[in-house]
């Protein structure tokens, strides 16, 4: 029992830290805030150790906080699944805490910095407790608290006007997700009679489908699945980078945790559930990466990639249910563990990417990648870290991204064991779309890394940039190290955990890669010409090579945009003006590419306008004089008399 006390003692440090931060609002000096972040870092590490212990040795922890009233009590139960997710949250938030020791120094007044520190502490604590929740009341309680604190964090940088818009968008979407979750939980409560997460088998037919759909919609709004993803790019570009690292690295995973918790432990899923989750996963993966390709704001690009990776995780879950229904348990376990491993990997490399891009944005000052370039020579460490992140997100062999995508590929490839032909065709189409997504992801990150870090700087800010302080390098480098280690030793880890999967042993591959590199290097050292010199890049004879000759991000993604034109509905407008009126001597012109914001224009704005219209109509009915008021009550009374007279016999 010692562990439970230790765990919840450490979790109680968060609110204390938050309280201290708020109380010393104005007076708090820099060292004071940094000491809080170091405290948070150590607490996160402690929680990481405890969760690893529970995850591996499968000891469940139970803890009743207190009984609020009647059937409502805040109680926690941590089993392997919850411990796994707590481990993810702990590791990522410890690195983010280290990173934000220096990062929060650059923004806002002392009071707002204290406020963000306090809110980050509460945000991390609420995520822990959502994952550890034992009954749906606690789950909802901390789920709301999580969205509330993250709403304040998104709103923390109040100087820019579009922060307000994105914070509003974010808040309404989270409220919508809570509404759907509440609907699902209450419907479950009416059947099972208790709020606990226990196996409910008495559901059937339409009711079960309704409960599943409301929960699925609730969780996918928070996870950013395609039709509900619209808040993600706005929230991430508006919030400071350490917060968007936490949000997209970890908060989205809490939604995935909720979905897995219900699929594994509460429901006995039907086949069509698997197919819907798979289809939603495929659509959000493909559209996520396609929209990422057109993005030139680094944070929005990474946000769309979170949508893509959430799509991949959903694919894994969908496959798990499909294989479960055809009772291929090995393949089902493979895809489930693949999905969970991808959640862990995505948390790692996405927060690594967000933190390193945060340092870049912090130094350059703008988020537009068209104004960056040549940063690898000026910010080598951040460059290397971003390279590690982009290599593992593009799923290249020795890294962890590859292993989890390989597991899901393996599940797709072995899907020919299923006898139902239509399912096989669906899975093969899924396989090709999945391959297309990972290839586009690779293309997108070549563009991102190439345009930001390589070649010549495109703006003065980029030219005079210098690398960030060592603390903002240590945090992400912990994540990078985890990426590589998890990649190479994945096979050993799985064997140790007891899952024998037909996975390639990446340690052997890594060793052979290393061995061959050394061999080739030696060969070149001995045989080839020793000296080398630097000279102008070849520009067909132009002497002064400047940065405007380089390939820009929009140039890089233009071929893909034209190929996927129907998805983007790209509109190319070119207008030229000439010196003479015969249109022969060209003066200047503007060429623009507009991509149509499908979801915003077609779904979100019409709904908002409709609601606005009704509310205008209803509220205008109130700004009238006394006679109309009396007329309202007169008609109401006459109607009432009519009804009672006729209906009630």
């Amino acid at each position, binding site marked *: 029992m010692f562990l439970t006390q230790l765990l919840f003692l450490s979790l109680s440090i968060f609110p204390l830290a938050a309280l201290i931060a708020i109380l010393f609002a104005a007076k708090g000096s820099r060292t004071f805030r940094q000491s809080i972040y170091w405290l948070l870092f150590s607490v996160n590490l402690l929680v990481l150790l405890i969760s690893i212990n529970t995850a591996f040795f499968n000891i469940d922890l139970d803890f009743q906080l207190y009984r609020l009233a009647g059937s409502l009590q805040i109680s926690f139960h941590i089993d392997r699944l919850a411990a796994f997710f707590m481990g993810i949250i702990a590791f990522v938030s410890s690195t983010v805490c280290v990173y934000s020791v220096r990062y929060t120094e650059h923004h806002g007044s002392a009071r707002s910095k204290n406020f963000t520190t306090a809110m980050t502490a509460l945000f991390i604590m609420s995520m822990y407790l959502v994952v550890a929740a034992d009954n749906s009341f606690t789950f909802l309680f901390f789920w709301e608290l999580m969205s509330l604190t993250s709403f304040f964090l998104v709103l923390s940088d109040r100087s820019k006007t579009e922060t307000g818009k994105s914070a509003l968008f974010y808040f309404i979407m989270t409220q919508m997700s809570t509404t759907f979750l509440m609907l699902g939980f209450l419907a479950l409560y009416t059947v099972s009679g208790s709020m606990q997460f226990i196996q409910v088998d008495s559901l059937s037919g339409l009711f079960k489908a309704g409960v599943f759909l409301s929960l699925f919609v609730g969780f996918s709004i928070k996870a950013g699945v395609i039709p509900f993803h619209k808040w993600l790019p706005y929230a991430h570009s508006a919030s400071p980078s350490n917060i968007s690292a936490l949000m997209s690295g970890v908060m989205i995973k809490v939604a995935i945790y909720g979905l897995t918790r219900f699929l594994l432990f509460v429901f006995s899923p039907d086949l069509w559930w698997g197919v819907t989750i798979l289809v939603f996963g495929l659509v959000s993966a493909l559209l996520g990466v396609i929209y990422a390709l057109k993005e030139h704001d680094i944070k929005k690009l990474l946000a769309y990639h979170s949508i893509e990776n959430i799509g991949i995780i959903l694919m894994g879950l969908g496959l798990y249910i499909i294989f479960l229904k055809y009772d291929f348990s090995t393949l089902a376990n493979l895809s489930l563990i693949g999905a969970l491993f991808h959640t862990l990997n995505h948390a790692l490399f996405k927060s690594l990417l967000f933190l390193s891009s945060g340092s870049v944005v912090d130094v350059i000052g703008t988020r537009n990648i068209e104004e960056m370039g040549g940063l690898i020579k000026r910010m080598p460490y951040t460059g290397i870290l971003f390279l590690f992140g982009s290599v593992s997100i593009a799923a290249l062999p020795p890294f962890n991204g590859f292993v989890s995508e390989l597991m899901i590929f*393996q599940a797709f490839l072995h899907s020919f064991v299923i006898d139902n032909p239509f399912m096989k065709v669906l899975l093969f189409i899924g396989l090709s779309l999945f391959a297309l997504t990972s290839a*586009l992801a690779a293309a997108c990150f070549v*563009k991102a890394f*190439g345009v930001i870090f390589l070649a010549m700087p495109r703006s003065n800010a980029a030219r005079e940039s210098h690398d960030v302080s060592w603390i903002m390098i240590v945090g992400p480098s912990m994540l990078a190290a985890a990426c590589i280690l998890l990649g190479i030793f994945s096979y050993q880890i799985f064997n140790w955990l007891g899952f024998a999967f037909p996975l390639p*042993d990446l340690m052997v591959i890594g060793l052979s890669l290393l061995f061959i590199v050394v061999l080739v290097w030696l060969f*070149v050292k001995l045989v080839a010409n020793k000296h080398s010199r*630097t000279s102008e*890049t*070849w520009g067909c004879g132009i002497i002064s090579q400047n940065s405007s000759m380089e*390939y820009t991000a929009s140039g890089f993604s233009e071929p893909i945009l034209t190929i996927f034109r129907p998805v983007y509905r790209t509109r190319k407008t070119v207008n030229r003006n000439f010196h003479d009126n015969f249109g022969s001597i060209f003066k200047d012109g503007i060429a623009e590419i507009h991509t149509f914001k499908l979801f915003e224009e077609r779904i979100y704005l019409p709904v908002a306008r409709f609601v606005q219209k009704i509310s205008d109509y209803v509220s205008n009915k109130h700004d009238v004089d006394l006679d109309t008021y009396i007329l309202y009550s007169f008609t109401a009374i006459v109607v009432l008399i009519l009804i009672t007279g006729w209906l009630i016999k």
Partner: protein
Amino acid sequence: MHFILYAFINTLFVILVSPLFVSLIKKVKAFTQGRQGPPIFQTYFMLNKLLSKERVYSVNSSLIMKMTPYINITCMLVASLFVPLLYVPEPVAGIGNVILFLYLMVCAKFFMALAGLDAGSTFGGMGSSREMTVSAVVEPVVIIVFAALGLLMNTSNLHEIFSSSIKSSLVFNPAAILISLSLFIILIVETSRIPVDNPETHLELTMIHEAMILEYSGSDLALMELSHSIKQTLLMAVLINVLMPFGLALEPGITSILLSSVLFILKAVILSVIIGIFEASFAKYRLFRLPSLFMLAFFFSFSTILFELLR
């Protein structure tokens, strides 16, 4: 121990034999255009010349430029372990997984594209942008082809595919013919042959692969050319082992290795001649007509799957 012997023999054979086919294809194309063309061993001479030259780096380039040749060659050599040219060793954990084979090639392509961007010239940028577009569109086709192959042999390990193709010779199976057609199209795309991209030209509009290695010189260029030729050999080997596996031995005896190497060279020469003729008879497609070509390959492999499923 046994595996290391296989690894040593296989990689050595690949390195030795692959430049031959590149110059062979050039020779065949020259004959079709009525000119004499370079000698068969021209690529060996070029590699030797390049090794002796000094390396020239652009002023803008960073460590990516220096790293990429080594990454390319290692990826290709490790990938060569996956495709047994002479004899099929008994499976070792991990070696032979189709996805790993494909993603090693993607890793090489990823870093080559980055190197293209690194020098800061427009050619490199255009080359890597088009390379990534083409690879993004062709990737699903490649996966479906190997999935179809896996479906036929119901395994996803290359070694098992080849060993089972030896036992039950596939030549007369209709699905095998469709698969080899799409494998041939993938070979053309991956090694940037004529319809997709022109390997010999330096005209910026037509070169994709060449544009990325424009900035390289000296030993780096040698490594890049070598890895390009190894990639071509590996893909040819996959096609050969699937369609005409009779030369491939099953256990490592001296005589069987010599026999299978001679047979492999013979089959590869025939295939290079076919490639040369195929290249000569086509003109380079416009970039945005390429997806229709890939749809053709996709159609072939998907019809194999349907054919296999519904039979």
